[in-house]
């Protein structure tokens, strides 16, 4: 008997995998390669293969708006990262104290995560509105000189966005951390109590080091979320006042679809890709490097 052709083994499985293969190869690999290649061209309204070398990148790094975008992303990203972890972890430990109404509290903290960035941005735009929001309320209480108008003050505008971002995203970190805490063997806690270690020390020296995998996964999730920051800005500040809250993702969009300057958009998005790669690749090597794939 002839052995069936290799191609026809698991034939149905291969047919079924076509959408995945097309997506992986054409969209993810092909699309990325395409964008990178065209970032070296002089594409304007339409993509054209007219090489200009690194011109687009030179222009990018001499554009004030791009520099501000990068700075904003760095400020937002670092603050977000630090605060979302601190807040998320503290919330998780508080809830982990066998509190009553745990479900209610968790539901309240997590609901913002179900809302879109557009909704988030608009609500906080309203709350931070200096005429009606927090500033006016505190002034009405007697502190007439009180000033808190992040969305109108270019110096602190990005922190106005940060408040909204934290409100929306910290619930997710809390949930992940809580799952991590609950995943710790209860006997570890018992052993620490028998050893007479106070709870805060147990968290700090035993539990947190044990949660390393959860922290890393959360880190990767949060970082890739930060890099994508776009909707929130568009809804809450539109990049303003002036260019005070511009971010790279918005720069890319505006260049591609607003300014008909595709080349700039491609170069800027390639820079974003590089940023993510710098974080994801070391993580992937750490995570999967030693071990074989399952």
């Amino acid at each position, binding site marked *: 008997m002839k052995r069936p052709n290799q191609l026809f083994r698991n034939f149905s499985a291969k047919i079924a995998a076509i959408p995945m293969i097309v997506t992986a190869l054409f969209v993810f690999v092909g699309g990325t390669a395409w964008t990178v290649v065209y970032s070296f061209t002089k594409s304007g309204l339409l993509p054209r293969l007219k090489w200009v070398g690194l011109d687009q990148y030179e222009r990018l790094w001499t554009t004030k708006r791009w520099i501000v975008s990068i700075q904003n992303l760095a400020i937002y990203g670092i603050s977000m990262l630090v605060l979302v972890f601190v807040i998320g972890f503290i919330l998780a430990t508080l809830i982990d104290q066998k509190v009553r109404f745990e479900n209610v509290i968790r539901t309240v903290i997590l609901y913002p995560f179900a809302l879109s960035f557009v909704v988030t941005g608009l609500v906080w735009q309203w709350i931070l509105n200096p005429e009606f929001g927090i500033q006016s309320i505190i002034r009405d209480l007697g502190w007439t000189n009180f000033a808190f108008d992040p969305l109108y003050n270019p110096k602190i505008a990005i922190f106005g966005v940060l408040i909204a971002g934290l409100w929306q995203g910290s619930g997710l970190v809390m949930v992940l951390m809580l799952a991590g805490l609950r995943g710790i*063997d209860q*006997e*570890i806690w*018992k*052993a*620490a*109590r*028998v*050893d*007479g*270690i*106070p709870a805060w*020390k147990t968290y700090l*020296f*035993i539990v947190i*080091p*044990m949660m390393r995998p959860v922290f890393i996964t959360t880190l990767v999730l949060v970082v890739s979320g930060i890099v994508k920051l776009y909707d929130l800005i568009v809804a809450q500040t539109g990049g303003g006042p002036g260019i005070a809250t511009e971010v790279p993702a918005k720069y890319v969009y505006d260049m591609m679809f607003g300014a008909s300057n595709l080349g700039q958009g491609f170069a800027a998005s390639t820079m974003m890709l590089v940023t993510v790669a710098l974080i994801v690749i070391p993580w992937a090597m750490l995570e999967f490097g030693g071990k074989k794939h399952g």
Partner: protein
Amino acid sequence: MNYAVEIKDLDLHFGNVKVLQQLNLDIHKGEFLVLLGSSGCGKSTLLNCIAGLLEVTDGQIFIGGKNVTWAEPSERGIGMVFQSYALYPQMTVEGNLSFGLRNAGMPRPEISERVKRAAGILQIEPLLKRKPAALSGGQRQRVAIGRALVRDVDVFLFDEPLSNLDAKLRAELRVEIKRLHDQLDNTMIYVTHDQIEAMTLADRIAIMKEGKIMQLASPNEIYNRPRNLYVADFIGSPSMNFLEGEIKAGKFHLEGIVIPLDGYEFVEGSRREGKAIIGLRPEHLVTGDNLASAAVRTKVDVELVEPMGSDTLIYTKLAGRPIHVRMDGQAQVSPGDKVEIGFQPERASLFDPVTEDRL
């Protein structure tokens, strides 16, 4: 009073679930006490109450004569070893052993002294710089024991410390724990559901069922004179054969077989007539040459034979009821054979069919 641990009228409820009820238990200084029972009977719960890891619902706990009912686990003078080892994974073995002591503010020289001594006793000196992930199961459990050892306490609590190990290692560490006990003179309370562990290690065994202690006695006593049907059935593998009959005029009547009870030691005040259950261990039913010592004999039909190497188990019927008989491993029997079996009445156990207590 020379008790290491005293438990008085202990109640423990989880909401509506009453896990322990009115439990009393006194443990002698230097005793090796094993808590034995089926899964979910409350062994771990009791141990956690002693350790102070669970708050009792009612009752008192004394350790070393001191009322520790409200004391923190670390103040009770206990050390505890867990089934999952519960080692701190990010610390070295040395770190694991010393973390509690350092935290209590003990001077460094004394810490290293104690760590060295514990490591010596448990033969884990070469492992001190390693992390738990780089240890085998047996080594990890040794470190866990070491962590209890450095605390220099009088009472050790073990919660199924060997059940995550394979059979060979388990046997090895069992011997080691026994040696440790002989060497240290500590009181040890040891939870297990492994009968062999219980029989080999214990000075006394407490058999638990549904949060109550069914019998507290030496292994020997528990094996030979089980206090009730539950204990009789629980201890021994394969378990005891139970046959219902009647006591008439000081003799047990089992469908035509008459068993004289002259040699049987009745529990005080329980000698009576009427329906009763007789319990016969498969290994107390003898055949062949051993029949000479048996006061009661009868012939039975072999239905099934299970050779197990060291001995052979046969399935048969006695007085119409299925029973097991344990024979020598070399015995030549096959289904359909007739064999003569016999036993000594004084090795049997009698139970009241209603109260299920020993007669």
